[in-house]
Structures are given as structure tokens and as C-alpha cells.
């Protein structure tokens, strides 16, 4: 049980060094998958997370043979006396991560863990000029959002997949493969805007919060702690299917609307994001480079329709937006 309890505090960097942190890492990575959003979907994430949770729980529960491992991922309380005491010890040694209402600092620390793990899978492209350019565009777009105060940072990562990711607190990454498909700065602004939208609306953070509160409800934390969380009972009420598909889809559509809005406010040609969606939509479905993206997001066609409906005539008077293809940074390889 001890290992799992530690997992509920993944934002603490010291935890990384903990010998039992492996399960925590995979949980975070799984969260990444989901949230990471970029252009991706959160629905699969929920399922992945459930699987990881179950795996981790089974691993832990293997030490207590009286509990059937298959119950681990469900909402049945499985607390034991031993785990409660360990939990108490863990809680007193370090301050509790406030899952109910994380501070900005906690959000950033959590995002750092997630982003660091993603960079473990795909490091930054070693091109300082590229990274600086993307940070310039991203920072300007983020300044048009509702959270200009976050320490926004952006990175292009070594992968030929087409995808982009956001982690809580303002960590945003896009793949070199996706960057390669872009032809001007307005398109880049739209893509980054989508990810910024996820961070602003705390889409990933909320999924993680739900999952953690579910853990609490499932008895991975002490009863006392669980009773303090009204949200926990709500999470249990919906069973393990914490994130309904429709809810996850709506987060993507919302990020699309926000991304386009931010880029437009920043002075860019508003249709940059939709051009990228057109490009992605034309990519062969069997191309492995879009497998994860298509799995985790609504189809680009649906996103275009939803954006078109939301736009209506609202862009009819928006003119003189810039595309700035002239200063768009060209990849070296």
C-alpha cells in the first residue's frame, strides 16, 4: 500500500527517487497520454489510467493475499489496518498534495513531472533557435489567455508523430513531425493556442484530480481523508468510468475554440488552426504517425464542423490577421 499512497503525491520531486515510484511514473505517463493533449484525446486516457491503476493496485495487493486482486481497480474499499498506519506515517513525513484544490505551485510541480516524463520518451530537438522561436510565439499567444501569469514554456520534441501535448502549469510540447506540417506562424499559433486552452481550463489537472479522488474513495487513502473529500463520493458514484467520453470530447472542442480565439486576439490570421486540422484530416488514417492523435481526439472533420458552427459569422469583421510565413522558422532537418 505504501507505494500507492506515494503515488498520490507525484508532484513532489523527491518522490521520483523513491524506489516504488515506478507505478507513479506510469500513472503520470498515462495521464500524459490522455491529457497530453495536444491535439489528442482524453477519452482513451481515462481507460488507460484505469488500467494502470489496476495494474499498480494489483502489484501492491499481491502482498496482501486476503484481498482478491481483481477488486483493486473497483470502488470497493480495501483498506487494511497495516496500510492505514503506513499512510499516516507517509502523511506526517511530508505535506499532503492538495488534490481537492491544488495551488498554482502544485499545479506547476505536477506538470513538471508529466512534461519531464514525456521528454524521457522524446527529448527536445537540439536546435536552440527553433526552441526560442516556438517559445516566442507561444508566450505571445499565452499572453492573450486568461492565465498570462503562468511561466509558459514550449518545446519541439524529437518525434515524427503528429501530435502536441500540454501538461498542467504551462508545459507545452509539439512534435517535430507536426511542426514539419506547418507552413506559417499563424498555424503554429493556433496549435499552441489549443494546448494553452487545455492548460487554462485545467483539463488534464481535473482528470488527475478525479482519478486521485477515486483512489481515495477506493480506500487507497485513510477513511478520514476520504470523508474530507465530498468530491470523492461523487467520483465513486460514476464508478471507474470517471471521464465520460462526451466530456472528454468536449474538452477538445473547447480547446479548439480557445486556441483559435487566443491566436486571433494575438493578431494572427484566425484560420491557422483550422488549416492544420485540414492537413491532419488528409493524413492517411493508416499512417502510424497519427495513430495516437486519432485515438485520443475527435476526428479532424468533426472538429472542423464544431469550430465552423462556433465561429458562425463572428470572424466576418476580423481582418488583417497575419500569417508571417516570412519569419516562420524552417527546420534544419
Amino acid at each position, binding site marked *: 500500500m505504501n507505494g500507492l499512497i506515494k503515488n498520490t503525491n507525484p508532484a513532489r520531486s523527491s518522490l521520483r527517487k523513491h524506489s516504488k515510484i515506478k507505478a507513479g511514473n506510469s500513472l503520470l505517463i498515462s495521464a500524459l497520454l490522455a491529457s497530453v493533449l495536444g491535439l489528442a484525446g482524453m477519452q482513451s486516457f481515462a481507460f488507460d489510467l484505469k488500467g494502470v491503476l489496476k495494474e499498480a493496485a494489483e502489484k501492491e495487493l499481491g502482498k496482501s493475499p486476503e484481498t482478491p486482486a481483481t477488486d483493486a481497480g473497483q470502488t470497493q474499499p480495501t483498506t487494511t489496518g497495516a496500510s492505514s498506519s503506513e499512510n499516516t506515517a507517509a502523511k506526517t513525513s511530508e505535506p499532503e498534495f492538495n488534490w481537492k484544490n491544488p495551488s498554482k505551485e502544485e499545479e506547476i510541480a505536477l506538470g513538471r513531472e508529466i512534461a519531464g516524463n514525456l521528454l524521457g520518451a522524446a527529448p527536445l530537438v537540439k536546435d536552440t533557435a527553433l526552441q526560442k522561436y516556438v517559445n516566442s510565439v507561444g508566450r505571445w499567444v499565452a499572453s492573450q489567455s486568461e492565465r498570462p501569469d503562468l511561466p509558459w514554456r514550449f518545446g519541439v520534441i524529437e518525434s515524427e508523430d503528429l501530435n502536441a501535448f500540454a501538461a498542467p502549469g504551462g508545459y507545452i510540447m509539439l512534435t517535430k513531425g507536426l511542426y514539419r506540417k506547418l507552413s506559417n506562424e499563424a498555424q503554429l499559433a493556433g496549435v499552441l493556442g489549443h494546448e494553452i486552452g487545455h492548460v487554462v481550463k485545467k483539463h488534464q489537472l481535473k482528470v488527475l484530480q478525479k482519478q486521485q479522488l477515486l483512489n481515495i474513495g477506493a480506500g487507497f487513502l485513510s477513511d478520514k481523508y476520504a470523508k474530507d473529500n465530498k468530491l470523492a463520493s461523487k467520483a465513486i458514484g460514476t464508478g471507474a468510468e470517471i471521464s465520460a467520453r462526451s466530456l472528454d470530447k468536449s474538452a477538445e472542442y473547447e480547446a479548439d475554440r480557445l486556441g483559435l480565439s487566443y491566436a486571433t*486576439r494575438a493578431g494572427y490570421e484566425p484560420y491557422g488552426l483550422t488549416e492544420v486540422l485540414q492537413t491532419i*484530416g488528409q493524413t492517411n488514417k493508416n499512417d502510424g504517425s497519427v495513430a495516437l492523435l486519432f485515438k485520443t481526439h475527435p476526428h479532424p472533420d468533426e472538429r472542423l464542423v464544431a469550430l465552423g458552427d462556433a465561429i458562425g459569422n463572428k470572424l466576418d469583421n476580423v481582418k488583417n490577421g497575419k500569417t508571417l510565413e516570412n519569419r516562420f522558422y524552417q527546420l534544419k532537418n
Partner: protein
Amino acid sequence: MKSKFKAMFMTACLLPVFYGSAALAAETGTALKNDTIRKEPYADAKSAGSFTRGESLEILSKQGAWLQVKTKKSTGWVRLLSVKRGASSAGSQSAGVLAAASGRAGTGQVVSTTGVRGLSEQELKAAKFNESEIKTMESYTLSADDGRNFADAGKLKPIAFANLKAAKGDTK
């Protein structure tokens, strides 16, 4: 016979004109939704017909946020986002196929097809935290002032524009 030859001649002359006038000439597209085709690229222009979702069409030109399209029955202007560039993929049906192919076997394909370091589910799960990379990424962090200077250099002017909201009746 004579008129037929004349028609062919005309067509031969017109073709290059078509190709030269717009980069979009002869590009095919697919209607993403049911929409009205307008005689002019304006929302209040008179109707020139309509198309239905999934219908194939030809994209003739682009003007602002409007595309000039040609369907079997009519020619006119529609909003940019009513059309998907490229041939029909039968809309949601393709999404279904995708979903079916996106299991673990599907993501495994990422590795085999690209041959590059991947972001498959498995690889993401196996990833280890990289402290030096995250520090490098954080070293690029810019201030709001940096962003403004960059915008000024590109003559980007911020404008007032309210966040888009979901269209009424839109399914979540």
C-alpha cells in the same frame, strides 16, 4: 463538327487559365455539413443552391474565409469550414474504422512504420523522467514583455475578440 472543334479549342485554352488563376484550381473537396451555396462570398448574398454533407465538390478559388465551389448542380460561395479539402472519407464512418484499428495492435504500428523514437502508449509508459531535458526546456521560458517585443517585431497587433462559445445545440 466545326462547333465541336471550336469547343475543344476553347477548353484547351481555358484550362491553363484555370490553373493559373488560383492555386486551389481543380482541388477536390467534400462537404462537411449541409450548407447553402451563395452567389457572392457574403453571408447575406442570394442563394445559388445547396450541398449536403459528404457531397463531393470542386474547389475553384478562395477569398478570405470563403471558398468558391462547384457541385454537380451549382457553383457559388460557401464558408471555409463547410468544406474539407481532399476526397471524401465518408465522415464519421472513417472515425469508426479508426477507432477499431486503434487498439494496442494499432499503436504498435507507430513503431514499425516510423522506425523513429515513438510516442506510442507503451513507450510513454516506459519513459523515465529526464531532469536535464526539462531544465533545458525551462531555460527557454520567456516573459510577457519578451512576447510583446516579438509581436511588435512581426507587426502583430492584438485585437479585441471574445472567446468563441460552443454553438447552440452542439452536442458535447
